[in-house]
């Protein structure tokens, strides 16, 4: 009937999440017409950049059949270590160089995860729970635990860089920072890897069945290793963006965010058992989490209810498809 829609359109998580987002926006606009403005959109977009990049990484790990909870620790470690390094060595370094160093530090920490998981075959949750603690502890103990506001000036320049900024005739302010490009870049790169390379398809295959992947000759070890290094690199990028845009290198920030990020990814349809997850879904999940975290005041829900609301959304977003799948399986059986 509707040939232009994918066959499973109505049963996909993406559809459900998009539906919830639309419903929420309608509700918010009804309760306060000012909600539906360019200001809201640009505010939400800005809030999505760091979470979005982290979520793309988390999605990749879930697709490969693992779970990573250490990426926030990697992000804050890479950000803080590179900031401290450049403040000591070359405070006037250009920001792209600082970014590259942060990404490299992130990759290196990701490689540590990858080594334990891919080469030693240890369970991913155990390894990343361990490294979460180690990375964070190492950072606070040996690198520093002070909030640094006096960042290298080029990082401040980066935070002041905007793609578009202004006020509409109706008086609505908007601002899209350079950092938004980083998110776009990460999405395009990851889309290309996942959809257009055998490496990406191998990641899906491993998530579907590790044993089958080995049997048909996929190099499981190196593919897994790549996943964790890539996630580390994304975390390094997200971290340095977080620090630059927030204009503060805060070693206590980000850690604690990992569960919200994983929640966003799971809402978007990625499954904890591996093999399933899309960029569209992930971004929708991020959008939903960010909207809920940023708009409850408008709808008149007290801030204290925020975590309850997110919890309910996760239960709905993951529970409804799981329940439907179970019913479908029961009918088939």
């Amino acid at each position, binding site marked *: 009937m509707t040939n232009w829609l994918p066959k499973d359109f109505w049963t996909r998580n993406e559809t459900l999440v998009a539906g919830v987002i639309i419903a929420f926006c309608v509700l918010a606009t009804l309760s306060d017409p000012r909600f539906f403005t360019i200001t809201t959109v640009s505010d939400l977009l800005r809030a999505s950049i760091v979470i979005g990049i982290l979520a793309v990484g988390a999605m990749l790990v879930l697709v490969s059949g693992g779970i990573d909870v250490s990426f926030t620790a990697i992000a804050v470690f890479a950000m803080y270590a590179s900031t401290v390094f450049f403040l000591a060595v070359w405070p006037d370094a250009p920001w792209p160089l600082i970014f590259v160093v942060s990404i490299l530090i992130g990759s290196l920490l990701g490689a540590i995860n990858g080594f334990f998981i891919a080469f030693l075959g240890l369970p991913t949750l155990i390894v990343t729970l361990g490294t979460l603690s180690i990375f964070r502890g190492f950072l*606070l103990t040996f690198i*520093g635990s002070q909030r640094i506001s006096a960042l290298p000036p080029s990082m*401040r320049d980066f935070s002041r860089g905007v793609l578009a900024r202004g006020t509409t005739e109706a008086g609505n*302010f908007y*601002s899209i920072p350079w950092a938004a490009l980083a998110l776009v870049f990460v999405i395009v790169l990851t889309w290309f890897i996942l959809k257009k390379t055998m490496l990406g398809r191998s990641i899906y295959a491993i998530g579907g069945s590790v044993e089958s992947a080995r049997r048909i000759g996929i190099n499981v070890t190196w593919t897994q290793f790549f996943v964790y290094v890539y996630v580390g690199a994304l975390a390094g990028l997200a971290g340095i963006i977080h620090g630059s845009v*927030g*204009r503060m290198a805060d070693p206590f920030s980000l850690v604690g965010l990992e569960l919200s990020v994983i929640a966003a990814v799971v809402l978007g349809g990625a499954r904890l058992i591996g093999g399933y997850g899309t960029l569209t879904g992930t971004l929708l999940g991020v959008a939903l989490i960010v909207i809920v975290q940023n708009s409850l005041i408008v709808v008149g829900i007290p*801030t204290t209810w925020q975590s309850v609301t997110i919890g309910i959304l996760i239960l709905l977003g993951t529970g409804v498809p799981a329940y439907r799948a179970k019913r479908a399986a029961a009918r088939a059986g």
Partner: protein
Amino acid sequence: MKTKTKLLAGAALAATAFVGTQAVADGHSKSIATVVKIAGIQWFNRMEEGVNKFAEETGMNAFQVGPAQADPQQQVALIEDMIAQGVDALAVVPMSPEALEPVLGRAMEAGIAVITHEAAAQQNTAYDLEAFVNEDFGANLMEQLATCMGGEGEYAVFVGSLTSQTHNQWVDGAIAHQEANYPNMTLVGDKNETFDDAEQAYTKAQEVLRAFPNIKGMQGSASTDVAGIGRAIEERGMEDDTCVFGTSLPSIAGQYLETGAVDGIGFWDPAVAGQAMNKLAVMVMNGEEVTDGMDLGLPGYESVSLDGKVIYGQAWVNVNKDNMGDYPF
């Protein structure tokens, strides 16, 4: 290990019982441990400066320690260590007053002089030192905010956490002051919770700006609040249209004070508080009593008021663009 701790505690008890009050008069150096919420952050680094200054001036063995993470249990463990080491006095900035009651109780039983700071409800303490009456400090910030806003318009308030007693008292004091003196100002929204995180404060500030486009003023509580609010204000280019005041430090809010996104901050100097705590500890060891209106000989503590065990100073410092250079922390 347990027995050893008991022995040490016992020894400490015996020692204090014996030497008692004349120790200081004899000129013997006493060891005073200042235990803070968390080691290494600017605030407590500044406090350590005060503790060190006190040690220099008096020749006491005064030093500061703090756990690596802001965790009440780690602080409890650290205090246990200090008791085991046989310190003579403890000056504690509790992470959670309730969690510390038992261990501070044991310390007092062992004859250790206990002083606390920022914990007016603490039971097991000789004196709790507050730099000021929290409501008064909040009112002080509000007075500046109201002046800046010309006594009219909408304003919003931020707290680090809704369960933080101090933050709530500041904000409540501010609101009470506004209601009593500035009827043309209106509070909009609930208390916004920022989880002591600049990023959250930024997000919340944006949300407030969207929901209440006519807002004129914002008051923060956590030291990171005004940084987050300032960022949102700066981004929207609203530096001149809004007034932002709050508790913070020049090192955190400085860049926003410069641009005018934040108009003023208030704080108390932790160095002075550290000195005051140590001074109180010595007084307790010497058996001296603190009385209402007493002069502790430190700025802001010239005429303290006493309410039960709680000592209040008027030790707040207001900082703006012009005098921020005087407080490099």
